[in-house]
């Protein structure tokens, strides 16, 4: 069975359990929980800002109150871990970054969703899990399987995507037209354009993340995948210092050299700002930017941006990642938390959140005629999702440590010129291997 069909198949069987109980039972599923308060841990993130605009409707519709605890993305995990480790924590629903899912499951902190989805008193028969973009569902929701973080035998659904993303190229239509340029279809064209745009336009060619830690690793991985590389081979042996890894890092060094000043200090926010404020001609990163581009309060380039697929290297591969929703095992109001999760990711609310500037997680939202008129880039996004790679980065439980404490230092050193691309990656082999051994991988 193919991985994607496994995701779909599992989802259908789990949700199908609720189908015979349509009608009165389903309609009254909120009544039991009216008056309860769901404590919801969310990050400061554009998608969740959009979500906050539709959230009051949930309370009006269900009688369930929601207490939102909004935290900076960087501080969210430590707070959530502290809460979820208690016998009874404060949270009934938490948002998590995709990279944390394996760790949360390994530490037995979040519920598998099956018990909620199979409960006819809770599950909405009209929910249609199959409509959720399968790659998002696999990447953000599934834990287990042969690799531990993908679908396959043994995998279970632990979360639902909410604030999920893939990578696309955004470019300044006006600048490209002025110089009679086409968006890059492959990495050779991409590399040529970096220098050309810098020389001709005098602004940065490509906005990119680059700050030490997770941010610069994310930027490097964006190029590593299409260039044919990966962090580990199939037996968890390091392979990031091979030809593809070095090529990807050299490409990123060129992005820094031709990009807006200060990329080695850029987080996602700064990279977005550089593009939105007209300091870069291209942007290659998360689809979450789309909601901001045409907002005149946040963007100086409204109406000047077109979208294209992530350029092709030796293969076409766009990223997969972003945020999901899960229910802590120690939640006081877990059922009410599930009802909120289900409501937020329903067809109607996915559209409502997208209208408010959020990123859709459902296929039906991305083909909705009204929304496609508002966001024509959805046509490109749907195409990009065909190439989205759920194995884009190895989200094993120790990935955060490898990401921030090893790769995040060495790649940053390469971006500031302290080390060559080759030296930086070769020097990282020993510490990453050591972390893998400490985590009991036989490498």
């Amino acid at each position, binding site marked *: 069975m193919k991985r994607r069909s496994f995701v779909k198949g599992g989802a259908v069987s789990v949700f199908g359990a609720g189908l015979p109980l349509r009608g009165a039972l389903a309609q009254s599923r909120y009544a039991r929980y009216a008056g309860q308060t769901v404590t919801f841990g969310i990050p400061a993130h554009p998608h969740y800002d959009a979500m906050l605009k539709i959230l009051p409707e949930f309370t009006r519709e269900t009688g369930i109150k929601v207490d939102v605890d909004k935290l900076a993305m*960087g501080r969210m995990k430590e707070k959530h871990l502290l809460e979820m480790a208690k016998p009874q924590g404060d949270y009934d629903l938490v948002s998590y970054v995709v990279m944390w899912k394996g760790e949360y499951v390994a530490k037995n902190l979040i519920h598998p969703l099956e018990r909620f989805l199979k409960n006819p008193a809770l599950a909405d028969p009209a929910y249609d899990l199959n409509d959720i973009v399968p790659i998002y569902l696999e990447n953000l929701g599934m834990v287990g399987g042969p690799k531990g973080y993908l679908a396959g035998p043994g995998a279970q659904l632990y979360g639902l995507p909410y604030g999920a993303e893939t990578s696309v190229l955004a470019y300044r239509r006006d600048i490209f037209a002025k110089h009679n340029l086409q968006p890059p279809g492959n990495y050779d064209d991409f590399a040529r354009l970096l220098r050309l745009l810098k020389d001709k336009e005098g602004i940065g060619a490509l906005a990119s993340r680059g700050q030490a830690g997770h941010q610069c690793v994310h930027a490097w991985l964006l190029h590593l995948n299409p260039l044919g590389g990966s962090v580990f081979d199939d037996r968890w042996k390091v392979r990031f210092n091979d030809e593809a890894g070095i090529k990807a890092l050299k490409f990123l060094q060129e992005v820094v050299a031709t990009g807006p*000043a200060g990329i080695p200090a850029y987080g996602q926010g*700064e990279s977005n700002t550089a593009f939105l404020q007209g300091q870069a001609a291209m942007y290659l990163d998360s689809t979450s930017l789309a909601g901001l581009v045409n907002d005149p309060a946040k963007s100086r380039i409204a109406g000047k941006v077109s979208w294209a697929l992530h350029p092709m290297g030796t293969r076409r591969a766009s990223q997969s990642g972003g945020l999901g929703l899960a229910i802590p095992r120690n939640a006081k109001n877990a059922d009410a938390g599930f009802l909120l999760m289900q409501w937020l990711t329903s067809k109607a609310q996915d559209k409502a959140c997208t209208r408010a500037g959020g990123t859709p997680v459902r296929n039906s939202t991305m083909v909705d005629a009204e929304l496609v008129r508002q966001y024509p880039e959805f046509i490109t996004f749907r195409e990009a999702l065909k190439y989205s790679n759920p194995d884009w980065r190895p989200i094993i439980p120790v990935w*955060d440590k490898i990401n921030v404490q090893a790769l995040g230092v060495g790649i940053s050193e390469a*971006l500031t010129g302290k080390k060559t691309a080759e030296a930086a990656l070769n020097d990282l082999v020993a510490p990453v291997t050591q972390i893998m051994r400490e985590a009991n991988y036989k490498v």
Partner: protein
Amino acid sequence: MRTPSWVPALYLGPAVLIMAAACLYPVLSAFQLGFFDWSMGTPWSDARWVGLDSFVSAFSNPRVWSSLWTTLLFAAVCVSAEMVLGIALALALEKPVRGTAFFRTLFILPMMIAPIAVGLAWRYLFDAQFGLVNAVLGLFGMAARGWLSDPALAFAAIVVADIWQWTPFVFIMMVAALANVDAAVIEASRIDGARWWQMTFLVKLPMVMHVIAITLMMRLIDAFRVLEVIYVLTFGGPGDSTEILALHIYKTAFVGQQLGAAAAISVLLLVVVAALSWGALRLSNPLKSEK
């Protein structure tokens, strides 16, 4: 009637015991944690005894030593500059002249701002594209610099942010100390013909040396513990050029999920800070004059 010797002990005892417990418990807990491998988010029963492994690793880990060196350099540069600037400002505003109250208030504002906000403010000020620092440099025809993307400049940036925030602390301590210098001594030195620098360096500052020592010690301790501003400003980068020990401990605990290893490095930090504080107090023991 003479008070029995046990009465002061009776009155002070409970407070001293509570203070001792409040101070010692976290230290002993950290020390105990250093002997275990315990990941955040798991029950304590899952913690694994590792003996001295974490302490040995702390000593053998080059990242610990490089971040300790960065911390020492950071503390030395920041605290020196803050002491000199704070004392100079206090001497300048010692005498009440027109606008003194306004300037005193203005100078202490930075230390009232939350460190996270300070980090964010300086992050924008140092932004290579939109930052005020580069804009000002541009007015003088100087090229824009990547303040937070160049290892040397990033270190300078965190130093500037710390000096900006904490010089006011030294200033306010010194203003209070100088206000308590006996006016008769100053007057006597003036009558004896002391010049400004003699009055400052040979009379006033020696008379407030105990406050200087305490201030120096407090700033040293704080400089070793600073975390939020650097977390926001650089997150230790580029590379690990601004990764001070407190940030390394944070990453070990909350990113690496090695609470035991983080606790072991914290004990190392405690020893270094205690040694430096002891040295600062030895410079001028404020309790000596009380004997």
